[in-house]
């Protein structure tokens, strides 16, 4: 498996202070990496760094294996603006092609076809003309996933994608993502949901207390000290 992103001893943060330091991990083609960590552990800063929106304070983040910076399909958390946004599913999915269209004012035929086939693939083809705000939470996430897939087919970064979904929709979305992963798309998912992380992910990156607690294969994570601690607390929290 060829590496697509290498993070070497990176420290992330703002001018006022470091949020997370000494991050060392590698993402290879076809990986399913879950980033775990409590609120405030620097997860969202790490996302910004991976997306290239906020440069790391020190260390390096390198792209290789045919993936360039900005070639990540991003599924952000939903914002208030989007909940009552009057836009059809087709319009949103097409906007994923924006970076490809450059300064051209309209989408090309190929880009439109890409949007159509992606919608069919994710099972939202029949909703193409429906309004985004009238869809269920799970359907909305599929729309945003289709948009991300229009941007790139190499790597997806999902920021807590199942938040606010009912258990059935959560399960369906996880299966859909796992299916995309089997097709060879690299997945990076930020999550609170430990059970599903262990079930689906091939690799785990656990950050907390401003540093990297664990990075490695999921099986090794379960044996590691931080894994046992985190799974333990998680279970206590659920009781």
């Amino acid at each position, binding site marked *: 498996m060829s590496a697509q992103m290498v993070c070497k001893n990176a420290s992330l943060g703002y001018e006022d202070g470091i949020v997370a330091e000494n991050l060392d991990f590698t993402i290879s083609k076809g990986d399913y990496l879950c980033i775990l960590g409590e609120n405030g552990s620097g997860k969202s800063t790490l996302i910004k760094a991976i*997306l290239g929106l906020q440069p790391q304070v020190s260390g390096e983040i390198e792209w290789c294996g045919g993936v360039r910076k900005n070639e990540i399909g991003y599924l952000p958390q939903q914002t208030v603006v989007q909940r009552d946004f009057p836009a*059809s599913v087709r319009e949103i999915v097409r906007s*994923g092609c924006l970076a490809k269209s450059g300064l051209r004012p309209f989408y090309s035929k190929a880009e439109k076809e890409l949007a159509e086939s992606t919608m069919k693939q994710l099972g939202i083809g029949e909703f193409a003309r429906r309004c985004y*705000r009238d869809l269920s939470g799970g359907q909305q996430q599929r729309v*945003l996933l289709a948009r991300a897939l229009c941007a790139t087919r190499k790597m997806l970064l999902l920021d807590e994608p199942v938040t606010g979904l009912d258990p059935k929709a959560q399960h369906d979305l996880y299966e859909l993502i796992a299916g995309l992963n089997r097709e060879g798309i690299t997945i990076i998912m930020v999550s609170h949901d430990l059970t599903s992380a262990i079930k689906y992910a091939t690799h785990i990156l656990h950050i907390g207390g401003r540093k990297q607690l664990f990075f490695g294969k999921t099986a090794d994570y379960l044996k590691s000290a931080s894994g046992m601690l985190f799974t333990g607390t998680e279970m206590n929290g659920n009781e």
Partner: protein
Amino acid sequence: MSNIEKLQYYFEFPYVRYAFIVGILISLCSSLLGVTLVLKRFSFIGDGLSHVAFGAMSLSTTLPVMIKQYALSWSGEDKLSPRMQGVVNWFGGLNDMYIVLPVTLVCAVLLLRTGQNTKIKGDAAVAMLSVGALAVGYMLMNRFPSRANISGDVCSTLFGSTSILTLKREDVWLCIVMSVAVIAIYLLFYNKIFSVTFDESFTKASGVNADSYNLLIAVVTALIIVLAMNLVGSLLISALIIFPALSAMRIFKSFRSVIICSAVISVACAAFGIIVSILSSTPVGSTIVVADLGVFILFSLISAFVGKARS
């Protein structure tokens, strides 16, 4: 004289026709951008900028008087030197747009910056700037009155020319050029504006420079506000921007249909408002806004009715 004859009579004057064209173009521009501003939760920026435009307008009208007074008290003579008189005359003859436009543009950019900055939160910054500009504007108009009728001046700046016939030929051409520019920008960057409006973080992540498109939106907003000041005055501009968008969003469900519907509503209301104001000599700005308000109420009722029928 019947209404039709009255209209025919009025429309024989070229400046009535020009004013009609300007009204249509301005309402078209403001409705296009209004959808984006409402959805981005930027409607308050439009409101703030309109007050800034009022302040700038006051500055522009009082500038010749101000210069004259200070020059007289500084030199201690009763008459201005020919050179100074030239300066005063030059400022007096200057089109207000050349002062109002740059000031509003700068404030638009500043407001957008503070929106992202955490020191003064966006809404507080807008409130501060808008009341500040109002106060300064009113004070300038009182301290350096350019004409005897101060309250009339203030009123026409706030609520638009009491008659559209006071538009100058130069204003008309400036309006036409700027409206065409706004519409062209909107058409060329339609997809980008949609994406930036719907999801800024995704747009940024895919490598599109979202900040520069935000800047573009702010600049175009400032342009439209300065344009619309002639038509409806600075207090009522916000109505021109938000009402058509809100009405269209009641009923239509895709971005494109909302934009088109909003443009149609806005143009229809502007045309209706101008014609009514000619026929029954009502102030043109408020007539247009009342028409917009009427459409909004109508569309709200329709959407409530349709919603009930569906469920």
